[in-house]
């Protein structure tokens, strides 16, 4: 049966198992919106800005593991989506973004709402396509989902001219696809696995450093087995939090610029680093010359280009993280591997000494709400079991430090690109995926205003998100850097003329609660989280001068942290 391109698109998405389409209509996608209106298999979520559509799809993808799907119009629709696409790209999040395009005969004519979407998005997508004929549409869509979700995942853009959505062709859902130019490696190289296990057997101070790859590949169970087997301390990157239970005694916290003392010291002193699904980002390594100076390095990653990019490694293993860990476990079993018990005792003694520094302790001040206290209260009230999305800045680091994630896919933050405005729309995607779950958006008064308009979408789609806004009247991370490195010249980091967030929330039809005193914190949070079917905006006035500690200054090694 012949279908129009628009109907093929909606039909395909449903056949592909897509639940939600996050989008915003416009001229070039009107045929598609008409097709959406005559079907009920996929649900369209109308946002208030295209950036929010991409972040919402991203939050959905991070929390479920399924690809997020976005539909925006040509021109400004596409350009507004770019920030969200780049955010997903940096964190390897599977996403398919459909952009409308002007009709094929107008492409290149500077037509109304025309932009070269394929050109603009090229550096921040895993791949992109321009559909030139309706005959190619279904196959290109299949390729887009295949590329987005396999190998190292990432966003894929499909640019569809308006005439292609009006033209008709027979539609058959393409079940299988092969691409001669794209065949991601899954299995790790046997020789390398053997070499890695030999290094593990010889190690006296082993250490596991794991990142977002463990979460993306659902390898948390395998990772837990490996850690136990090696009796090795585990540190996570910000992207990797929840990939290993924070409450496990092997866990030493996050590493890097705002990592814990014990994690950074362990990295600086280990003799074997097993890096899994992590990419040695500059925020993680600090001064690369001083990073893990005593360690042999094993690096497991699905992306060969991530290996030996920043740090030269001894044993590279390309493959899917879960597959490789399984092979490692098998080889450990086969090789009569015995961990060095005496060495382990000394290593753990040393780690416990570093732990005793209690680097996350903070000074309390009777009148002022400490942001760390707010996050500890959030952790206690939600019993550590909430989905926590965050924006970018000090609050993000405090959330990473003080909300101890035991499960994967619970910590949703923009790690690579560091996109302010991510938190609220991402929370929308999570709440849609898990309507009954507790979803908290930890944010600041700066970040929340970058996508505040989504309070309206939350009302329309009944999303009872709890916004935990740490309001210190400053762009806190900028202020902190200005305090440390710019002689306290607070150039444009003060947020003047802030709205009354309580009234603002109420204006959108939500509940607003302001917290001004530490002693009111617990009651306010309890009240907020009791309102299961309402969005609550908690405007928490926190100490404006609090800093994130520990901190590794730019150019310093991880063991040269500033402690409080």
């Amino acid at each position: 049966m012949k279908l129009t391109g628009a109907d093929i698109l909606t039909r395909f998405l449903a056949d592909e198992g897509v639940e939600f389409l996050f989008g915003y209509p416009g001229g070039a996608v009107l045929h598609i919106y008409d097709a959406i209106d005559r079907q009920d298999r996929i649900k369209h979520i109308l946002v208030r800005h295209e950036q929010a559509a991409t972040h919402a799809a991203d939050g959905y993808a991070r929390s479920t593991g399924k690809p997020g799907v976005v539909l925006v119009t040509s021109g400004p629709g596409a350009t507004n989506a770019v920030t969200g696409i780049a955010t997903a790209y940096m964190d390897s999040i599977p996403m398919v973004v459909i952009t409308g395009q002007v009709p094929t005969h107008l492409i290149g004519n500077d037509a109304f709402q025309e932009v070269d979407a394929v050109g603009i998005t090229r550096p921040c997508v895993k791949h992109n396509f321009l559909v030139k004929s309706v005959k190619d549409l279904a196959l290109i869509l299949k390729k887009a989902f295949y590329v987005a979700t396999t190998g190292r995942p990432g966003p894929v853009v499909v640019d569809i001219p308006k005439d292609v959505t009006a033209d008709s062709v027979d539609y058959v859902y393409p079940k299988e696809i092969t691409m001669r130019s794209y065949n991601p490696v899954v299995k790790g190289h046997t020789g390398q696995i053997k070499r890695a296990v030999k290094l593990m057997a010889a190690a006296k101070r082993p250490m596991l450093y794991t990142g977002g790859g463990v979460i993306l590949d659902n390898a948390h169970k395998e990772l837990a087995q490996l850690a136990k087997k090696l009796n090795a301390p585990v540190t996570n990157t910000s992207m990797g939090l929840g990939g290993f239970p924070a409450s496990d005694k092997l866990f030493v916290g996050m590493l890097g610029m705002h990592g814990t003392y014990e994690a950074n010291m362990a990295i600086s002193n280990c003799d074997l680093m097993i890096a899994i699904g992590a990419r040695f980002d500059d925020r993680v390594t600090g001064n690369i010359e001083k990073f893990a100076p005593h360690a042999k390095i094993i690096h497991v990653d699905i992306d060969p280009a991530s290996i030996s990019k920043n740090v030269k490694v001894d044993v590279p293993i390309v493959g899917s993280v879960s597959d490789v860990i399984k092979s490692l476990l098998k080889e450990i079993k086969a090789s009569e591997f015995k961990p060095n018990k005496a060495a382990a005792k000394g290593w753990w003694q040393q780690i416990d000494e570093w732990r005793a520094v209690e680097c996350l302790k903070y000074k309390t001040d009777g009148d002022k709400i400490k942001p760390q206290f707010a996050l500890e209260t959030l952790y206690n009230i939600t019993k550590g079991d909430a989905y926590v999305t965050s924006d970018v800045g000090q609050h993000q680091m405090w959330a990473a430090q003080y909300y101890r994630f035991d499960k994967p896919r619970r910590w949703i933050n923009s790690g690579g690109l560091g996109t302010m405005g991510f938190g609220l729309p991402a929370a929308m995607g999570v709440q849609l995926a898990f309507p009954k779950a507790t979803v908290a958006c930890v944010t600041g008064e700066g970040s929340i205003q970058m996508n505040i308009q989504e309070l309206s979408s939350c009302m329309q789609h009944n999303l009872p998100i709890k916004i935990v806004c740490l309001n210190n009247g400053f762009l806190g991370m900028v202020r902190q850097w200005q305090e440390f490195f710019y002689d306290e010249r607070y150039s444009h980091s003060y947020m003047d003329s802030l709205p009354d967030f309580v009234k603002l929330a109420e204006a959108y039809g939500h509940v607003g609660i302001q917290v001004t005193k530490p002693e009111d914190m617990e009651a306010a949070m309890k009240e907020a989280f009791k309102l299961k079917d309402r969005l609550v905006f908690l405007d928490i006035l926190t100490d404006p001068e609090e800093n994130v500690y520990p901190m590794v200054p730019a150019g310093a090694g991880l063991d040269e942290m500033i402690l409080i």
Partner: protein
Amino acid sequence: MKQKTKTDEEGMRHIISILMENEAGALSRVAGLFSARGYNIESLTVAPTEDITLSRMTVVTWGSDEIIEQITKQLNKLVDVVKLVDLTEGPHIEREMLMIKVRTSSNDLREEVTRLVDIFRGRIIDVTATSYTIELTGTGDKLDAFINAFEKTPILETVRSGISGISRGAKNLHI
């Protein structure tokens, strides 16, 4: 694209041959990768192969071993890239074509040019009352030497194709 002169500190020169899907935008994906990551390009050539669904691209670049390793990995990561080989890792042949137009307004000049063309085994492919156009194929060094040989003859125009390369022996880049 960053154009730099090659020096020893900047590492070895490499010729990377790429087989990729003959799709619109494939060239800009490669060019964009080089500019976004700050890799060097000396020359880049591309044309369809005997199988019109595939293009063959030759990129001449230079850098340290680490940079070249990253370049090949990043190129391989492009979804349109089917296969690639660093020709400089083994015996190979490289060729470039030059077309040069020179002023030949006197008999002396015409004789001088004809002699040079013979020495370098070039061909005169167009002649007017005042100019010769010459075609010459060879390695980049040979073309440089040819151009430098025109000491007295005024050069009106030069155009170079950029380098194409192929490995020696039966080894081939094919799918």
